[in-house]
């Protein structure tokens, strides 16, 4: 198949050989699980269990709130010991509402209902079941999958993302090698849910075994496996669309606008499990790797497992890690507290050595424009950063800040080590905060106006009531006077 060119991108050292040949192993059952209510983009889920309740594996413990949200299920059987805050797998290290589950060691499933003929289900039914299973995009963006299916119905092309362009990570590689048949069924289910005409699976050429396994599994189906060149960020939604279809997602738009839907291959596996077996999303494949890890590996970890358990499973450190990262090294989140739980979007746990992070002091920008050549979106990172540094966010937006996908290619190539993508993340956060305060101001203005109106109405009503009383009093007085006059007249 003809592939289209992609501008920019970088070629970081893959480091995938550390864990690529390690089969997926299930992590031993942890004693305590910390299941955050917010593991997805959108509104946090609301707990439907209480402290002291006994839950079975797969039982709903928190329901989705509103349209953009995802349900959360018990990862194993046991007792709910706390509903409260626990440190979030997030660079802020802030606490998030979390359900603490103490495992009873039995790992007993609740009653689950699968489907013998999943490919005969109606599109709406598939989306509803995906939603009920709490499935979110497992590539890292964690967007609720059911919503994505519902807004993408009738797309031309379904692209399954097996790019896995982040260095170190091998979780998608392993799942494609070991569970290709299930993934293909999941892909066909997603395709049925959105009525896609064309189904492509894009896999980078550094994963030949995965390509072979997927091709074998896709034999005789409408699914077409495509080999793509290895390059970062090939696994980014907009970039994979560009390479496979030649179409570009419009600025501020969604892939559905150009008739494309992109899902991760691991999400397809979760969809298959949810529909054929009725199993909600309660575990995921995580790569544990990095120079500081003794035995890099791929594990199937329950959602809520503390990261420390994964590191212990990988035989701990060979030397103290100078940075811990959740996700890939390019776009992942730094963390320090190893008590943070694995969540639905955690693709990797990396313990990196000083030599691997290459941290150095930033020096002045010499306008070499290396970042411009690296940007896969075609932006001018150096110019945008200069505007943001001078507190001119509007200028940065005019240069296309909102189209930045935060892939970090610019920071990676910058010879002056300027933290370019950090500038962009800051600016996007600041703009969002400004937007929020503007919305709040509009809302409070309405409240202030309503109050003034109410005060005026009360005044008016008071005055009217006083006027009515006065009129009544006067009428009474007049009547009394008239009666007195009449009485006097009669007396005369």
């Amino acid at each position, binding site marked *: 198949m003809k592939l289209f060119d992609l501008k920019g991108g970088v070629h970081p050292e893959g480091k995938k050989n550390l864990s690529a040949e390690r089969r997926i192993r299930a992590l031993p059952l942890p004693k305590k699980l910390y299941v955050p209510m917010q593991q997805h983009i959108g509104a946090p889920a609301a707990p439907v269990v209480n402290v002291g309740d006994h839950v079975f594996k797969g039982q709903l413990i928190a329901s989705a709130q509103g349209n953009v949200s995802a349900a959360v299920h018990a990862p194993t059987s046991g007792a709910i010991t706390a509903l409260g805050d626990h440190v979030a797998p997030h660079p802020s290290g802030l606490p*998030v509402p979390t359900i603490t589950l103490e495992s009873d060691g039995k790992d007993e499933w609740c009653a689950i209902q699968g489907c013998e003929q999943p490919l005969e289900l109606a599109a709406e039914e598939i989306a509803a079941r995906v939603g009920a299973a709490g499935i979110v995009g497992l590539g890292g963006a964690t967007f609720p999958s059911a919503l994505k299916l519902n807004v993408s119905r009738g797309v031309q092309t379904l692209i399954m993302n097996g790019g896995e362009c982040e260095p170190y990570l091998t979780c998608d590689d392993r799942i494609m090698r070991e569970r290709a048949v299930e993934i293909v069924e999941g892909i066909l289910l997603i395709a049925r849910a959105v009525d896609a005409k064309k189904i492509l699976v894009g896999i980078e050429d550094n994963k030949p075994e995965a390509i072979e396994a997927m091709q074998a599994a896709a034999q005789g189906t409408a699914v077409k496996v495509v080999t793509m060149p290895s390059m970062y960020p090939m696994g980014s939604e907009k970039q994979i669309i560009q390479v496979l279809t030649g179409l570009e997602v419009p600025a501020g738009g969604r892939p559905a606008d150009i008739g494309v839907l992109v899902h991760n291959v691991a999400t397809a596996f979760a969809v298959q499990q949810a529909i054929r077996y009725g199993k909600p999303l309660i575990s995921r494949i995580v790569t544990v790797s990095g120079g500081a890890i003794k035995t890099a590996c791929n594990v199937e970890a329950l959602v809520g497992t503390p990261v420390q358990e994964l590191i212990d499973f990988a035989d701990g450190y060979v030397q103290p890690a100078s940075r811990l990262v959740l996700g890939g090294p390019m776009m992942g989140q730094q963390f320090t507290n190893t008590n943070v739980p694995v969540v639905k979007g955690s693709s990797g746990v990396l313990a990196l050595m000083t030599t691997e992070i290459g941290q150095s002091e930033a020096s002045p920008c010499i306008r070499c424009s290396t970042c411009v050549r690296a940007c896969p979106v075609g932006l001018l990172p150096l110019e945008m950063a200069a505007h943001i540094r001078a507190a001119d966010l509007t200028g940065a937006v005019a240069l296309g800040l909102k189209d930045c996908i935060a892939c970090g290619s610019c920071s990676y190539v910058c010879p002056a080590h300027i*933290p370019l993508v*950090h500038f962009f*993340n800051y600016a996007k956060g600041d703009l969002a905060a400004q937007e929020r305060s503007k919305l709040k101001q509009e809302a409070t203005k309405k409240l202030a106006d309503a109050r003034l109106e109410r005060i005026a109405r009360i005044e008016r009503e008071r005055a009217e009531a006083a006027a009515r009383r006065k009129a009544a009093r006067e009428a009474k007085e007049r009547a009394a006077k008239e009666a007195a006059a009449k009485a006097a007249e009669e007396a005369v």
Partner: protein
Amino acid sequence: MLFAAIISLTLLGTALGLLLGVAARYLKVEGNPLVAEIEQLLPGSQCGQCGYPGCTGAAQALADGGAAVTLCPPGGIALAQALAAKLGVDADLSGVEDKGPMIAEVKEEICIGCTRCFKICPTDAIMGAAQQIHVVFREACTACGKCVDVCPTESVTLQPIPVTLQSWYWNKPILGSAA
């Protein structure tokens, strides 16, 4: 020749004068539209912290050029920038002490339920009743500070809005002097 010039200029002057007179009558602008536009930007809580009688007064002063764009404490830096853009002036933000967004908070231990704060709140952001502890609706509070002034027990204070996962974002990178 001379008369022709005088006549034509006189006619021209009269005609244009009439035109202007008619235009002035029929195309008259009521008040300064800029004042209304500026008032739209202001919080509208009429808190009076700027020293003007309410937001309309402040808008009038801004339109006349008598007030700095940084006059509104509840609006913060974001409002100062919006006003500067509207008025086409450069905002001197160095003087703005942006403590970040704040909200009022009632210390429940010392609230006596006097109802003064909830009566004065310009955005109905305080809920309470006589002899009952009062509470603040975070979403409705503009941190105008009127409640702080009337509270007899100093139970109401302005506090920074707690950072949550939804509102947190990366701080601005600080580069060394070399960069």
